[in-house]
């Protein structure tokens, strides 16, 4: 079974600018991978190459074993662009009908009803897109990407126009999609969001993959903080495993322990460390 997304030695040059420089990445079936990186790092370029919107200048990208951009690859993916617009004269229902036809989905009205409910747009079914807020359009974009239940979803900043409630809705939706076996590549600037939902994180900087792994694996122990009667004491370099021994030693020394906190670097710390 080929991976949902396989990126190998991917390169892209825009004139003298190297947007991507030998990126290797894999996304497994049912996995949620967060793609992080500063502006201009090459994240969106990678996603666009995977969608067939942009041609690479080196390396390969495969979607479920088919070369990116091929009809087979496009049949296997759903895509929400960072900057997109749908025709304002269409209603949500009409847009989904159009994309069902283009995607070859035979889901019919039942699929449209389910997707609109999933993104909380049931009431706006017949509303013209130009009368929708940006957040509603973004949710409609998610519904559009899910047409035909594609095994791979490439979502480029899917929550950029959403309020906190909308973001929460998308988080729940992403978890639901993972449970259904969809592979999701989530490109976002919101580290907290990535940390909350993603199984794995890949950080790109200046066109190169600079860090990759589960959020917990990427973080490093920073020490153990113990609250005692004589004040807060910090044991630098200690890890979670060292905490019982530290507490035992302090109690043995006659200290009264009120609380213990294991300190670790956050995803933000890791991110800033590798991109700077």
């Amino acid at each position, binding site marked *: 079974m080929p991976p949902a997304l396989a990126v190998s030695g991917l390169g892209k040059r825009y004139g003298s600018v190297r947007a991507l420089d030998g990126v290797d990445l894999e996304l497994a079936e049912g996995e949620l991978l967060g793609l992080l990186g500063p502006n201009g790092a090459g994240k969106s370029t990678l996603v*666009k190459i995977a*969608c*067939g*919107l*942009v*041609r690479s200048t080196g390396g390969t990208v495969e979607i479920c074993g088919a070369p990116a951009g091929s*009809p*087979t690859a*496009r*049949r296997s*993916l759903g*895509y929400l*662009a960072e*900057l*997109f*617009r*749908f*025709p304002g*004269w*269409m209603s949500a229902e009409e847009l989904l009908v*159009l*994309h069902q*036809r*283009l*995607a*070859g989905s035979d889901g019919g009205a039942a699929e449209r009803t389910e997707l609109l409910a999933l993104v909380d747009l049931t009431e706006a079914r017949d509303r013209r897109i130009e009368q929708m807020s940006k957040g509603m359009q973004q949710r409609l*974009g998610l519904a*559009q990407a899910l047409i035909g239940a594609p095994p791979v979803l490439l979502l480029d900043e899917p929550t950029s126009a959403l309020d906190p409630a909308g973001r929460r809705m998308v988080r729940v939706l992403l978890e639901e999609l993972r449970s259904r076996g969809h592979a999701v590549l989530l490109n976002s600037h919101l580290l907290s969001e990535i940390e909350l939902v993603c199984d794995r994180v890949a950080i790109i900087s200046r066109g190169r993959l600079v860090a990759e792994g589960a959020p917990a694996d990427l973080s490093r122990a920073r020490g153990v903080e113990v609250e005692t009667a004589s004040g807060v004491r910090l044991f630098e370099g200690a890890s979670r495993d060292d905490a019982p021994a530290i507490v035992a030693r302090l109690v043995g020394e006659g200290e009264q322990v009120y609380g213990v906190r294991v300190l670790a670097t956050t995803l933000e710390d890791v991110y800033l460390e590798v991109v700077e």
Partner: protein
Amino acid sequence: MRDVAVIAGYALRESLRRKVFLIVLLLSVAFLTLYGIGVWRAFEDTAGFVPPDQLGLDSTVVTGATVLGLAMFATLFLGTVLAIFLTLGVVRGDAERGLLQPLVVRPVGRSTLLLSRFLAAAGVCALYVGLLFAIETVTTGLIGGWWPDNAVAAGAELAFAVVIVVALSLLGSIFLTATANGIAVFMVFGGGLVAGLLAQIGRAIGSDTLRSIGRWASYVLPFEALYQDALHVLTAGTTGFERFALELGPFGGSSGGGVGVVLWAAAYLVLIGLAGIAAFARRDLP
């Protein structure tokens, strides 16, 4: 074919919903009304014209061919305006607005997308030009009692000329922003017409240089050659001094290209189509 129908239908519905067709209809009705009044007045004013006996000039033929020739020019212009506005932002314009990407990532294929948009725009423009020309012909015939020698061929060539403009505008939309493309195609259109007029003047005064400008313009911009040929077939059976008098005017169609023009225009259309498909396939979309 199913995908072509879906995208062409999408393009047509967009024009319908954005009231493009309604505006075109209203303006066309206004134009045809003015044309009807103009034809009536032209035939009225020339009815009393008595040419010298030895010339054998029938003023009805000259008036009819001239006003219908003028109407053909207006129809070509209106068809071109419609063609440009339907296609000026199909690729780069829509991509910059973020409208194209959700369609391109679908398993439709870029060539299918381009072909569908071409067929939709070409179909609408050809139908519009054909219909407008038919109404103008009938108006001229009913009011002035003059009917062209070959109205069907003239209408078909006029429609074909506008289809060439559609193809040029679609090709331009791959490289240029919507505004730049609109300006460029209008300028190319204007340039083609000027070259045609220069060639006509060249034939009248016997200038080889001006004639070659017209010949090269016919190859590079065959919509102009088709328009000239359409004017020519309008009065293909007219001979003698009437023919001479018509050819002196700007709508006389002194240069008939015959089947060669149509064949070259068809080949040109295929070449433009292939160039467009190749360019769109290589284009990165933002």
